[in-house]
């Protein structure tokens, strides 16, 4: 733990959180709640000691959480080395949480963790309850600080000399426990800072966006004029396009700009989070390859990736973008000529993407959007996928074995509109990326259509059908959504409802 903390401190993380095993969401399986993890006290002590020994503690906040409930808990955490403290269970209880452990079932009987309007009526909490609870925490903490002679939390951090193990615990397991390594204070020069006082240098000023892209895109950002630029890129360039995208959104609002207003073409190897969060109106084209988190949180933009001209490998068999591409993306388009790493499209809620092959756990927890895979997928495809649709071209016929069918059903393509939609997306993919694979698929289209497997989440299908039904009854907008929701919420076939 200390090693990881030192590593992330060097990598300019602002905070390291030590999250103990007592805590966790009520949606966890009981076995995980009871039997995984270790106490935060152990991790916190090691983290703080390692950071101090390596003179890194000055640059990073250390936070602790895991069933902190009293001022005493906060005092102990501070003395072991934390300056930030996370509370969840106790404030939730002040708001009316009864620890039912059904947060994932939509049946919270006190309206805390549910979308059901009938149950939300029972919510009796108020922010004042949390404020009041925190006042008690603060009061108790101040009493302890006064007893120990501290004026500020910062003075307390890492002062393990003020902690002593209780001697009189009568439990056979407590016998022979040695706390010295937890209570040790690192032997370092007095100049070494023991709590966070120095800002991390994130190097934003040196980023490609600040040094080049904002200037290039200025006409688009300010006046909505079209811009195009060709730029080289290296993997030291992280989150390329994100600051620019943020400026577009600040100026043009959530609707962004017309498609392709900003068109940036990069050549080379992109660093992490290329095109993260870019809005509508931005198109990032990459000739080369990309690291992890490509298009993370994509918010309307378009991302095109293809191998460098003259490359000799088969695109669909070689990984061209890293893991976790389009994580949590909400809208936009993506065309990737090549294979993606693991967890492609995890938590995607609205992006339409075409890719030629992917690694394990594709479309995990996906809730919306369309994903077309023109080749093989890794194992555990569609785990926890509750929405959106994936289309996998399964020429080998072994896709069902790679798919986690707990929440999804596998179908053939039947609907003509749907087939046309897929055809059009693949055609655009071919046009943008010059993909050989796409060209071949389009050429053999008639023979290949039956080989597409449509991966349809069962819940999603039921809600879509309900929506269709209530719309036929003349409802629309939120009313229609609520009516469809009501129709399904009590259905035991519901995956969440067992």
């Amino acid at each position, binding site marked *: 733990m200390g090693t990881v903390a030192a590593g992330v401190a060097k990598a300019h993380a602002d905070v390291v959180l030590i999250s103990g095993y007592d805590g966790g969401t009520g949606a966890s399986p009981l076995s995980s709640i009871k039997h995984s993890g270790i106490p935060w006290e152990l991790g916190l002590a090691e983290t703080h000691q390692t950071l101090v020994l390596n003179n890194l503690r000055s640059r990073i906040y250390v936070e602790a959480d895991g069933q902190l409930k009293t001022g005493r808990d906060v005092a102990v955490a501070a003395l072991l080395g934390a300056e930030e403290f996370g509370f969840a269970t106790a404030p939730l209880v002040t708001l009316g949480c009864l620890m039912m452990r059904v947060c994932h079932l939509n049946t919270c*009987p006190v309206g805390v963790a549910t979308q059901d309007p009938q149950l939300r009526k029972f919510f009796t909490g108020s922010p004042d309850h949390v404020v009041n609870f925190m006042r008690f925490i603060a009061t108790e903490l101040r009493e302890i600080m006064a007893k120990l002679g501290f004026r500020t939390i910062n003075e307390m951090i890492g002062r393990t000399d003020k902690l002593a193990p209780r001697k009189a615990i009568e439990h056979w397991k407590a016998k022979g426990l040695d706390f010295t390594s937890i209570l040790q204070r690192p032997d370092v020069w007095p100049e070494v800072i023991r709590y966070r006082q120095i800002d991390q240098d994130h190097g934003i000023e040196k980023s490609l966006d600040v040094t080049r892209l904002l200037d290039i895109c200025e006409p688009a950002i300010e006046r909505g004029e079209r811009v195009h630029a060709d730029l080289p890129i290296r993997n030291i360039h992280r989150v390329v396009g994100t600051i620019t995208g943020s400026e577009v959104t600040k100026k043009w609002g959530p609707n962004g700009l017309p498609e392709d207003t900003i068109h940036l073409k990069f050549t080379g190897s992109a660093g992490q989070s290329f095109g993260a969060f870019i809005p509508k109106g931005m198109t990032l084209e990459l000739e080369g390859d990309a690291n992890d988190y490509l298009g993370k949180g994509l918010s309307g933009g378009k991302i095109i990736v293809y191998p460098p001209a003259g490359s000799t490998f088969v695109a669909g068999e070689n990984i061209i973008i890293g893991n976790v591409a389009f994580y949590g993306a909400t809208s936009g388009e993506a065309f990737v000529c090549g294979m993606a790493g693991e967890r492609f499209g995890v938590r995607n809620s609205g992006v339409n993407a075409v890719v030629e092959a992917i690694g394990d756990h594709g479309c995990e927890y996906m809730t919306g959007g369309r994903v077309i895979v023109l080749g093989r997928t890794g194992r555990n495809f569609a785990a926890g996928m509750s929405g959106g649709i994936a289309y996998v071209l399964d020429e080998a016929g072994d896709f069902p074995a790679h798919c986690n069918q707990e929440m999804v059903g596998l179908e053939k393509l039947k609907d003509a509109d749907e087939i046309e939609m897929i055809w059009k997306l693949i055609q655009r993919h071919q046009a943008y990326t010059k993909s050989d694979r796409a060209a071949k698929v389009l050429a053999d289209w008639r023979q290949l259509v039956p080989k597409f497997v449509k991966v349809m989440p069962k819940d999603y299908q039921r809600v879509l059908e309900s929506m269709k039904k209530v719309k036929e009854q003349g409802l629309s907008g939120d009313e229609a959504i609520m009516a469809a929701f009501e129709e399904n919420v009590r259905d035991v076939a519901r995956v969440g409802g*067992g």
Partner: protein
Amino acid sequence: MGKPTGFIEYLRELPADRPPAARIADWKEFHLHLSEAALRKQGARCMDCGTPFCHTGVLLSGMASGCPIHNLIPEWNDLIYRGLWKEALERLHKTNNFPEFTGRVCPAPCEGSCVLGINAPPVTIKNIECTIIDRGWDEGWVTADLPKQRTGKKVAVVGSGPAGLCAAAQLNKAGHTVTVFERADRPGGLLMYGIPNMKLDKEQVVMRRIRQLEAEGIRFVCNTNVGGNYPAEKLLKEFDAVVLATGATKPRDLPVEGRNLKGVHFAMEFLTANTKIILDGKKNGNFISAADKDVIVIGGGDTGTDCVGTAMRHGCKSLVQVEILPKPPMERAADNPWPEWPKVYRLDYGQDEAAAKFGADPRVYLTTATKFEGDANGQVTAIHTVQVKWEKNDKGQFIPKNVPGTEKILPAQLVLLAMGFLGPEQPLLDALKLERDPRTNVKAEFEKYSTNLKGVFACGDCRRGQSLVVWAFNEGRGAARECDRYLMGSTDLP
């Protein structure tokens, strides 16, 4: 949990009782059963809480919250939803020796602390419990289960009420040879002679269980008053251990003018004689009739209610139940939050019957009796009442003060005192030289149950003072465990 959305879909439903007008014509039980389909829905209402309270059995503000014998309620609710009755019965018997008793007479602190009750009517736990065990008896699943090995140790249990029966059943399970002493002519204690037949059927429910215990090897010795016609010293000599479960039978009196008039009785005299008549099928000298009388019941608790129900069945002319406390609110007051026992207005069976016949709930609140008036023959004819208000004295205790100008005179030919019990009768305890606590109960620590006399344990009302049947179960089981530990050095009893 069978159905996560059960509590949203189904409303609380209890089986209908027999209509009051019909049931006051006999002494048969008045609760009916739900259909299996309806009961499964009630089981589905259980939320299988991540943090349940129904089984906790703790005292909050002096009242039980959650089941004192820690019944595994969510588990058998789920089994009922799934239709697994036999498994449900096994799960129920794990913690409760006699669910047919608690299923009928327990006030159900489990339902008071049911998490669903925080904003909706709680799960019908008591009714489900009762149905599980009734079905078990009907199906023949409750059979004599003899211990595999006898330890050769002899244990005497004094008193055959709920605590004594539980202690005996558990000690017998552990292989000890158990003899239960009962001074009445039938075993069961308050279950037999305290609670009237319409609430707990003596022959079909109580004796059925006694016969099962006898078949398992427990010996019941009735008409035997330990410390009276059976010397206490003999007990200590003949048995390796003794469990006292004699109850808290000393009634609270109302020492006002005219208390000695004829027609003024303690509730237990009235109820005991009545049950005896039903069982014997012939009148006895102690029988007290309420027929054609103006009846006053003083005390608003369960015993008071039983007096009301019994008087109704005798055919009383009028009935007033006098309660010194204020009328409880219809919903929980702010100072009585969940999961405390809800102190709310309830219309129990007796009042329901009186209301059906006389048109209104017979209870008058914030009222106390100041005097009984009699005729030349020394027979009570009327009682004088006055309203009270509760005020704090200089020690900060609430005490009732009479309100001048609110005096009333009510006609009465029968007055029943149901004002609770003060503690155990002392002669046996004196004979054994047992230490007492300041409230005259036997001194023994909760969960330990050992008295100052080695090998003598005390449990139930004689140790904790008057309380619920289910607390007696808790203590009887606990005392059996400690007694077994004393006899064998270790114990497997829960």
